[in-house]
């Protein structure tokens, strides 16, 4: 049995300093959900496929089921809980609600963060850029049409502000 000494993981999540001592094999998604009680980030496939676990780490989306928590030490993380401000939904969240960009909502936290990253890069993405930008996020309900509508609407809204 190897020496599985716990390690201290310190991160900033949604602007707040958080830390916990965890076994090294703790996945980032479990760290967020079980240790920091941020259960907005979902576990879908648990095999790096579906993107339900997507969070933003140091400015880039990653699949948090495929990262050991100690690898994120010192990092800046945004989860779905960090999108709304002062009780007001983020324009991306508003657009998804408005355009029925979700049904069961399981994929939604990941899609919102992938959309945020996409819109940082392209303020008015083409359909091709949207397809490529969310190719790592599987939705089994919507058929994606309304997700595309949501993303286009969010882009237009965010450009106005």
């Amino acid at each position, binding site marked *: 049995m190897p020496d*599985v000494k716990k390690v201290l993981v310190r991160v900033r999540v949604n602007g707040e300093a958080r830390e916990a001592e965890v076994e090294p094999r703790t996945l980032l998604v479990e760290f967020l959900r079980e240790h920091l009680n941020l259960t907005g980030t979902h576990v879908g496939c648990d095999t*790096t496929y579906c993107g339900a676990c997507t969070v933003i780490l140091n400015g880039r989306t990653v699949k948090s089921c495929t990262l050991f928590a100690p690898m994120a030490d010192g990092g800046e993380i945004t989860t779905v809980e960090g999108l709304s401000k002062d009780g007001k939904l983020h324009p991306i969240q508003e657009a998804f609600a408005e355009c029925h960009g979700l049904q069961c909502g399981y994929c939604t936290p990941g899609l919102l963060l992938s959309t945020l990253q996409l819109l940082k890069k392209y303020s008015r993405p083409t359909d091709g850029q949207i397809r490529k930008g969310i190719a790592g996020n599987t939705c089994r309900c919507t058929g994606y049409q309304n997700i595309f509508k949501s993303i286009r609407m969010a882009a237009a809204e965010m450009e106005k502000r």
Partner: protein
Amino acid sequence: MYAAPFSYHRAASLQEAVKLLQELGEDARLIAGGQSLIPLMKMRMARPTALIDINFVSELGDIRTPKGELHIGALVRHADLEHSAAGATIPLLHDCAAGIADVQVRNQGTIGGSLAEADPSGDWGTALLALDTSVICFGPGGQRTVPLEDFIKDAYTTVLAHDEIVTALHVKLPLKGSGGAHLAFKRCAPVYPTASASVQVMIEDGNMCKDARIILGCVGLTAIRAKEAEAALRGKTLEEKNIRTAADAARAAADPQSDMRGSADYKRILVGTLVKRAIGIAARRARGESVEAGHEYAGR
């Protein structure tokens, strides 16, 4: 899913990483992006007892362009290359970087990890063979340079010693008048391709092929250099008939296995088609045309 327990060690420098590999023994492994290793560990197909995290070694993340060369640090992420000036100068690199898996995996996976993993379906081992690439390795005895064609020995097997680390890749910039393309076909974004082909050609007088390099991916235990296909183009005009002969020779050179991605026959046909298309795109780029290409999949 949880990986089997392991101890976690963070290397601050290359020297420290090598020392840790030696101290922790054969069951210790480096971890870079973790996009190959973590899935394997979660499925318990890999059970290292110690992980040495090299993500905090600062000198490994740079892309540099000393005269006539491109130096890519081992920790450069696929997404870094996708958005780099280097990708714009060498479109074949952009084709490859921008098509691997999806945004999230590209943000995390590294080029060094890809080559060290030597997955027969990995893209970099195929794409970089179409260019002149050397792998820079660092170990207890210092640094050594290994040509990429000698680096990958077999499926999932490289010449790296247990206590050696890939630190960078050195790619010779293609000469003026040359162009390349890396094409791959996969079922959807977050999976490895069913087949891939990398082609680099050098053109003279508009349509005469002075030199060609043709590499096949996913259709053998390692990437395959299709020398007869290259010979079918060298010194010939790039007309339909010669390109078809090259594609047929590439099909003959492929050694695919049937698996869940497709039958051996299907992959053999597919790889020839990719070669044919890649030659066309490489030639257009060699003539200075800007062409978009890369991984094809449903819904792209």
